[in-house]
């Protein structure tokens, strides 16, 4: 599982744009199901080594909430016995599709890249707790690399609710900012801040540096972030310093994806919690790190 995958988020959309808000108030998630599905679209950026895989998965598309993931089993990789968790990046209940964002880092993600339209695979999903912004009115969302994936459905729901939100998307280089168009199209370029480590696009520096500046300028009452763990630790520290409720989507190696094997636990103030079903989204204050 040291692949590329992270539980990225997805919004629980009922239809493609309006999903909504009541979903945030009650936290009941759909139970995961095993669903055989087929690839309906594959987009791959050679320069970034990042792809978008769209699957016909009507059950998952109808039930998924922002922040949940699917546990994916790939055909033709029998020697790789574990499924891979991928956040649902986008979902369209009316079309019955979900889209996953993946970065090629190992055998499974290399194999994903080779899948063509019509390829069959199996998902277990939707799995996990979703984001819980509650009644937040000013939200700041931070995505590092492909960690942006689980934020899209969240952003979509917040926009549908008319909640003010600001995004910071960061990557090492401009080529890796593959989600820019999707997020900017959703919230407008002015609310979509970009950072690159090398300054080839947007602000030169880290997402957390940009976030610190935004937090100094305007009040926020909710922060959601997904990305590399060092970034998430900094986000948690920023949120704690500003006393803002903060949720983080964590990545762990996973086996069952059902909460049974205890392979993916995260140490929290409530003892060990399972990243698969108690997470992958955690309240930053509860994490022991």
């Amino acid at each position: 599982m040291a692949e590329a995958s992270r539980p990225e988020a997805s919004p629980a959309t009922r239809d493609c744009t309006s999903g909504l808000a009541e979903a945030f108030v009650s936290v009941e998630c759909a139970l995961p199901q095993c669903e055989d599905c087929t690839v309906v679209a594959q987009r791959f950026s050679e320069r970034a080594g990042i792809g978008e895989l769209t699957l016909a998965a009507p059950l998952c598309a109808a039930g998924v909430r922002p922040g949940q993931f699917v546990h994916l089993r790939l055909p033709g990789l029998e020697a790789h016995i574990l499924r891979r968790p991928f956040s649902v990046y986008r979902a369209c209940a009316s079309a019955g599709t979900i889209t996953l964002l993946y970065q090629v880092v190992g055998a499974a993600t290399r194999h994903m890249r080779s899948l063509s339209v019509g390829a069959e695979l199996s998902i277990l999903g939707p799995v996990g707790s979703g984001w819980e912004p509650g009644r937040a009115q000013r939200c700041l969302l931070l995505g590092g690399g492909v960690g942006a994936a689980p934020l899209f459905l969240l952003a979509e729901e917040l926009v549908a609710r008319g909640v003010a939100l600001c995004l910071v998307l960061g990557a090492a280089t401009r080529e890796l900012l593959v989600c820019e168009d999707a997020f900017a199209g959703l919230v407008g370029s002015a609310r979509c801040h970009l950072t690159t480590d090398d300054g080839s696009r947007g602000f030169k520096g880290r997402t957390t540096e940009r976030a610190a500046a935004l937090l100094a300028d305007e009040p926020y009452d909710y922060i959601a972030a997904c990305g590399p763990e060092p970034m998430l630790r900094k986000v948690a520290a920023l949120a704690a310093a500003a006393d803002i409720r903060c949720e983080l989507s964590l990545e762990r190696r996973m086996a069952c994806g059902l909460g049974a094997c205890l392979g993916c636990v995260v140490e929290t103030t409530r003892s060990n919690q399972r990243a698969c079903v108690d997470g992958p989204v955690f309240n930053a204050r509860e994490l022991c790190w």
Partner: protein
Amino acid sequence: MQITLGGLVMKNPVAVASGTFGSGREYARLWEEGSTSQEPTPLSVLGALTTKGVSLEPWSGARGVRIAETASGMLNSIGLQNPGVEAFCVGDLAWLATQDLPVIVNVCGRSASEYAQLISRLETEEAVAGYEINISCPNVDCGGMAFGTSASAAAEITALCRAATRRPLIVKLSPNVTDITEIARAAEAAGADALSMINTVAGMAVDAKTRSRVFDRGVAGLSGPAIKPIALYAVSRVYKAVAVPLLGMGGIRTVVDAVEFLLAGATAIAVGTASFTDPLAAPQLVNGLASWCRDEGVHTIGELTGALS
């Protein structure tokens, strides 16, 4: 399809391996939902369910990385995390009591007396059909495999557990020994009704990039298809060495895998890591085994046990 494993009557020979299945609640929900390729199935389709390891007190399990994939297998170092027997009884066991299948409780402890105390406590629970004595987990410092790699320690624990119960007592053996038949004979002589094998094979993973051990304890337990030949050989050898029935496990995924274990000498088999690849693997195996027997003209499943030509 019915068999008897050391006094435990199972409607079919398919169980699930301890630690891969929690206490069944997570899988039961999924099975009852059904899927695009499977009808809704109750948990009771299983011949028996073996719970995750239970100890007297709560154990927090291993720190750091707990799993890693390997070629056709996986390593785990969960460290027997469990909420302790009291929480187990009011939670998972109370729920299991509502399910119509034999429940084997996997018990573990840090000392011989802890195993016996634990069994004494569980004797008051009607939902328990039998015990699996875990003397073979490589992922804890005290107890676990330390007991299962010494014939005298295995015998001592088995005898203490035997004295604490008349229920079916299954001793789970480690493959990480010079001669597994020696431990098997010791457990049998001390009163085991059946033996289960194999627990995971001790292994290790290294991260070349960081030049460090992947698992905090260094060692972890290998499972999955990679260990099937090791498990088959162990079952075959122990079958010839003891008279008690065997619960075979280690990389079983398909009907043919299961049949191979029966032929090698197992009376029943358990699905473990395969449930991670496919959470519906166990019910599919139950159905597939019945069809296989019909197609092959096998009248009673027991005919297959040890039937190597």
